[in-house]
């Protein structure tokens, strides 16, 4: 049997198309059994694997402009799989998979030290300060493919890993080892009514994500597309979520660039 070729799943989000509607957030919550509390307005403890932030260009009326930016887990590859969070986890509850490029989170291993939360520069990780409580009867809609989490553990976006497993199971049953691009898609990608989120294998040049982002493997995956950028590029986290924007101020907002720096020509 042929050895499985390493995949590197990643995302490209077109910020020109993203409308900030929030469908990705709710699609994610519904798919991944993310709980909700009576008051979710303290955003520090509000668990949202996918969160849409709002950027502004800082100008005053009427020159002001807004851009929405969805933020899942970046599934950083770092340097050879040394993602910021994976490096600090004492329980091996989170790991970087060389096979898929997905950063896992194993809730039953996690003992809640939250080092990973401190290490993550994207605030993509959330701590369960409370046990999840669903109003009586509402636990009926819980998805059996994702286990609900308990108090005291950290959780985050998994790129809907259970969907990968299901797609692989199906492929194996059909005696295949390869997945088609559309066989494994995250819930947010599937839901996005604007088609702003694309998901696929960055190692596969035929997948839309690699065609759009054009990751440069010589330079730890930096996008060759001048309109594409990654968040906090210069930190060296090597994230696998790429953003596309035609607006320069949006691309500049992706990192703390100096005035004379041009993010498009950073490399």
């Amino acid at each position, binding site marked *: 049997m042929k050895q499985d070729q390493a995949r590197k799943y990643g995302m490209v989000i077109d910020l020109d*198309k993203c409308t900030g509607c929030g*469908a990705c957030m709710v699609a994610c919550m519904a798919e991944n059994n993310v709980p*909700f509390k009576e008051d979710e307005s303290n955003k520090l403890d*509000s668990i949202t694997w996918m969160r849409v932030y709002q950027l502004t260009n800082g100008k*005053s009326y*009427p020159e002001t402009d807004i851009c929405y930016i969805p933020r899942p887990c970046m599934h950083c590859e770092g340097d050879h799989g040394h993602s910021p969070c994976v490096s600090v986890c004492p329980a091996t509850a989170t790991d970087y998979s060389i096979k898929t490029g997905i950063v896992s989170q194993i809730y039953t291993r996690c003992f809640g030290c939250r080092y990973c939360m401190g290490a993550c520069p994207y605030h993509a990780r959330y701590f369960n300060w409370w046990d999840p409580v669903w109003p009586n009867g509402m636990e009926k*809609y819980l998805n*059996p493919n994702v286990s609900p989490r308990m108090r005291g553990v950290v959780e985050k976006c998994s790129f809907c890993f259970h969907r990968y497993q299901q797609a692989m199971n199906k492929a194996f049953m059909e005696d295949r080892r390869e997945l088609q691009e559309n066989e494994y898609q995250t819930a947010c990608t599937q839901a996005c*009514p*604007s088609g702003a989120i694309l998901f696929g294998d960055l190692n596969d040049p035929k997948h839309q994500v690699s065609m759009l982002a054009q990751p440069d493997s010589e330079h730890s995956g930096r996008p060759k597309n001048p309109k594409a950028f990654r968040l906090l590029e210069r930190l060296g986290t090597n994230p696998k979520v790429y953003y596309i924007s035609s607006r320069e101020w949006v691309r500049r907002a992706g990192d703390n660039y100096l005035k004379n720096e041009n993010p498009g020509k950073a490399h």
Partner: protein
Amino acid sequence: MKMDRRSFLSFVIGGAAGINLSPLPWKLTDDLAIWSQNWPWTPVPKDGEVTHVNSTCFLCPGGCGITVRKVEDRAVKIEGMKGHPVNDGSICILGLAGLQFLYGPSRVRTPLRRVGERGENKWEKISWEDALAEVAKNLSDLRSKNLSHTVACISGYSGGTVPGLFERFLTVYGSPNFVRTPSVKDSYELGLHLMAGVQADAGFDFENADYILSFGCGIIEGWGSPVRMFKANSRWKENGVKVVQLEPRLSNTAAKSDQWIAVTPGTEGVLALGLARVIVDESLYRREFISGYTTGFNELIQNVLKDYPPEQVSKITGVDKTTLVSLARAFASAKKPLAICGRGKGAVPESAGEVMAVLALNALVGNINQKGGVWSVPGPLSIRWPEPEMDAQAAGGMQKARIDGAGGKKYPHIRSLLHRVPDAVNSAEASPLQTLFVLESNPYYSLSDSGFVKKAWQKIPFVVSFSSYLDETAQNSDLILPNHTYLERKEDIPGVEGFHKPIVNLMKPVVTPQFNTMHAGDVIIRLAKKLGDPIGKAFPWEDTEACMEELFGDKWEELEEKGYWFNGNFEPPPLNKSFETASRKFEFMGEGFGAFYKEVIVKAPGEEAAYPLVLIPYDTPRIAGGRIANAPFLTKTVPDTVIKGKDGFVEVNPKTALSYGLSEGRYALLSTPKGSARVRVHLFEGIMPGVVAMPTGLGHAGYDTYLSGKGVNVNELMGPVEDSASGLNAAWGIRAKLSKA
């Protein structure tokens, strides 16, 4: 055996080593780990066979196809239906949260009868038999007293079989008072009726337009059919279609548009006429269309456009002259330009003058019933209800004037004027409304000028709610006859808001009814049978499904199998057959409605001296503001600059805030002529100085603890503003003031 130190140590060390070599410690550690990881209070969702059921979303008039993933008998996730003509696999934020309504805590689980004071929210459970008997008794009493016309129904939708059953019931019972909740659809219906002479819904061929001029429409805030609009918006981006957004606030749509032009709120119609004037002055209009298929062009110029030279328009709208002129040129020189109106989600009608101005603008560039233009879309299927037999009481009741004055002498072209109902009740000695049915609508919450509405409500002796959820209207009713939710019932939904092709969608039961609820259509059929002939005779069907089957005839099978009936080949009639006015042409100025242009500006109520600011409500996709309230998931996505704890925020331009000494997060008292509310201030550079904005859909008193009491119900601060031409409530805002609190 003598136990010396040496043998003791060998025993202990040997024993320890021995135990460690055995599986025991590993087994114990493992058991301990498993035990410590047993969280019996954390639910473990049961696995089982996965199935998918197709249906239609009913949470807004968007008519999207949905595919619900089920595990055994549980609905687990709602996703967009692949291949559906409206949304093709995509879905919006509200549609995704649908299961939170189905399994939510605010469901009404059984028929309820009020026991405390109205609004006290004290109920007793009663059987369906008793509930129906109570309604039947009330109705037959009124009928025997010749008061059948004092029964009314407020419905959140019309056109389908179930609202049809309600309307038919009222007709044979003897009441003309079937009142539909308003939206911009009514304005368009009126505009097309007056100018094109047709009785049709407006549809827009967005996918083929190449220039979009939006007069404040929340294209990506939920206007029309939301998912379709999202998809169109992305398509425009791919194809370089220019979108120009005209509104005083940087909404999502404005932020996504190619050009955002801030317009003084309420003057959008003037801007449309100003653009028309430039197009005429510079001869940029489509000559063949104007000369071949329109009348009244010269009259429009002489009587209307003469008053709107660019300087004047610039003064009124706050849009500078160069922008105005270049906008008119860009619009007219595009191949297939399209202008649309209807602020935000289009939940509030526009004035007749404004919708006519926008239609006239479209006519100038010749895009009525053309590719990429405004289409008049006839009802999807010509459904013929069998003619009911009317007795003297029914005929007499139907002769009476409607409670809202719609369809009368003054407003002959309008079918419903909901905002007039409270006034009609309050101004009469004895309430002209004795019994009120409320179907898929939440008027107690959504009608503006709440104090006045509450006063009227108290005067209505008997209110029956058909709500599936404990919304404000249900809370303030006397009897709740809970309907199945949209995921538990079979019902047809003809037409999709703003869609350019005829379509009928079918909701199908995805799960069996979770509680002791009943299909509202079945309730009406049973009620009719209970009242006896001739009312019962008009309802020969056993249940709603039998009725739908008869009405749809040979189309029923297709509808049931596919979940929708769609006429994809529909094309609007050719221009020489498009218009059914007396002249058989599109009429810019017609008899009886030319004067409506004069009332293109709708003023915000209130005196400027006392209320220097203007409050506008705004819509956002993350807060459902219609007949359905927000789901917990959606509320979770609302930013902390909109709700924080229970506090709602008002958006204020930093310049305006500075002049009131207000800063970010400060508490303030927002007052309008209709009421006041304690709010917090959010500074937003994207709003016109002098204008403040608040989201719709908050400040609920009903529903569950995840929503109730959060923010302010902006309707309580608003008041209706009647467009004197159409009678429609065209309120877009109200004058307001802010003070520190």
